[in-house]
């Protein structure tokens, strides 16, 4: 009796916490179907008054600033994650073959952007670019624009995540692989390309995914780095503080693909793990039977 009560209490608690986590997202999705017309004007400021069903919010979602911000977000995320993956993978291979002292030094400095609060990373980039732009103006050269600034910042905070996903893979992979490839007549570049890279590919791809999500998810660094045009989260912040509010349909178009992607990836992983476990059990049973 008591045990049963405790068990159902557990589920009630989990359920309530899940509700708490999803409540604001569901709230926006529900209100994305609301009619926000006041006369002929549309204002999202009063995001709590149900006036009737409408699909208008989806039609106007990407017209204007929000659309430009989304486009820039995707562009920055795509470019910065590819560049970060290339620099980061090369760096991991290089750092791995260094002597212990310099290797630890480089790895420790690489952790800096990961442990630094976003706010500090953001303002350091802001100051760096302010300094560089002041210098460029004095030399009467063109200033560094928002796109370049955002790219440099995003690449910088993504590289360490790539390095730290590739590193464990390199440790697992044998150094002999590289030597063997060279013994078989590969040049060092070919050995890397044909033997080492395929072996550490899972680490590279998870590093790439990390870099991509870090870039898509970033608000604080982008907010401090950019002046005029910026990414979606910065647009949301300024719109939320302004009088016009934010189109709640944004929540739907971010949330639905995200959930689908995460569920597919994780369910596949879970299924694989289970298959692996079942196989292990079978092997164990066989071993026992053999004895």
């Amino acid at each position: 009796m008591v045990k049963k009560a405790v068990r159902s209490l557990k589920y009630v608690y989990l359920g309530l916490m899940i509700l708490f986590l999803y409540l604001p997202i569901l709230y926006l999705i529900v209100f994305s179907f609301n009619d926000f017309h006041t006369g002929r004007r549309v204002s999202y400021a009063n995001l709590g008054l149900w006036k009737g069903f409408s699909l208008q919010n989806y039609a106007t979602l990407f017209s204007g600033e929000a659309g430009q911000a989304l486009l820039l977000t995707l562009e920055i995320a795509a470019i910065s994650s590819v560049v970060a993956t290339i620099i980061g993978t090369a760096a991991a291979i290089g750092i791995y073959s260094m002597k212990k002292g310099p290797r630890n030094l480089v790895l420790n400095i690489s952790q800096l952007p990961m442990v630094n609060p976003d706010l500090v990373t953001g303002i350091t980039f802001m100051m760096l670019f302010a300094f560089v732009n002041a210098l460029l103006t004095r030399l009467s050269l063109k200033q560094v624009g928002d796109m370049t600034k955002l790219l440099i910042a995003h690449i910088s905070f993504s590289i360490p995540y790539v390095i730290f996903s590739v590193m464990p893979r390199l440790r697992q992979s044998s150094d002999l692989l590289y030597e063997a490839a060279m013994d078989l007549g590969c040049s060092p570049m070919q050995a890397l390309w044909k033997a080492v890279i395929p072996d550490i590919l899972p680490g590279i791809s998870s590093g790439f995914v990390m870099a991509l999500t870090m870039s898509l998810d970033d608000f604080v660094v982008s907010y401090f780095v950019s002046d005029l045009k910026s990414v979606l989260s910065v647009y949301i912040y300024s719109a939320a503080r302004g009088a016009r509010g934010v189109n709640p349909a944004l929540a739907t178009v971010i949330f639905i693909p995200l959930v689908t992607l995460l569920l597919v990836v994780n369910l596949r992983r879970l299924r694989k793990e289970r298959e692996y476990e079942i196989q292990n059990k079978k092997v164990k049973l066989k071993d026992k039977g053999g004895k």
Partner: protein
Amino acid sequence: MKRKYFAYPYILWMVLFIAVPMLFILYYAVNVNGEWTLTKAWATLSDAGRWRILWLSVKMAFETTLICLVLGYPIAYILSNMNKTVAGFLSVLFFVPMWMNFVLRTYAWQAILEYFLPNLLGMKNGTLTGTEASVLMVLVYNFIPFMIMPLYNTLSKLDKSLLEAARDLGANSLITFVRVVLPLSVPGIVSGITMVFIPAITAFTVPALIGNGKYHLYGNEIELAFKTLSGQGDFAVGSTLSLILLLCVLISTLIMNHVDKDQQQGGQMW
């Protein structure tokens, strides 16, 4: 070609865009418009109002961390004791919101607290934003997955035979929990606390959107210094404030490392 050369582009990048920018905090704190001076930094340091804001931020970050720990530990514990497949699925459910743009989620809370809940409760023209409780709640909302994740990782890797051993030796489930599970989960608790406390001190989005101007925290003070003060931002004030912040972060990291080390050396907490 030696393989270590592959690290050189990165090392150059790191020096230019990670190490040098950090030095700019120091540079701008003592250099105002090309002149070396300590007056601005000193004026910032001796402003009592700013110290009050720092104290409020540290207090709220502490409260946020504590609530996250108290609410998050049971979740991680329940999940770690479940059937693996169910737990895997449920943990994904808990971490999905983390990947959704947090500014948008905070904006949703703003709408809920400003319009939806007051309407529901029949408060006329009332708003629930601008209270300490609402700011705390949204901070907890934003950071609790970062507490659950390391706790869940630690608890699910716990060696179950230790629990059986404790039970065989006559401990009931409460004693087993207090003397075996809890001490063994300290590494998870430590990394959970660091993952919540440091971002919580520097949070400025939540107070800006939920605080209604009344809960101006240290992060907002830095934002204000860099983005709006004297039109283009006042780097001297902002840098000095950031240096103090970095000092706080450093101290809390050192404390947490110390706790973690004690635990690993086999020191007992209880």
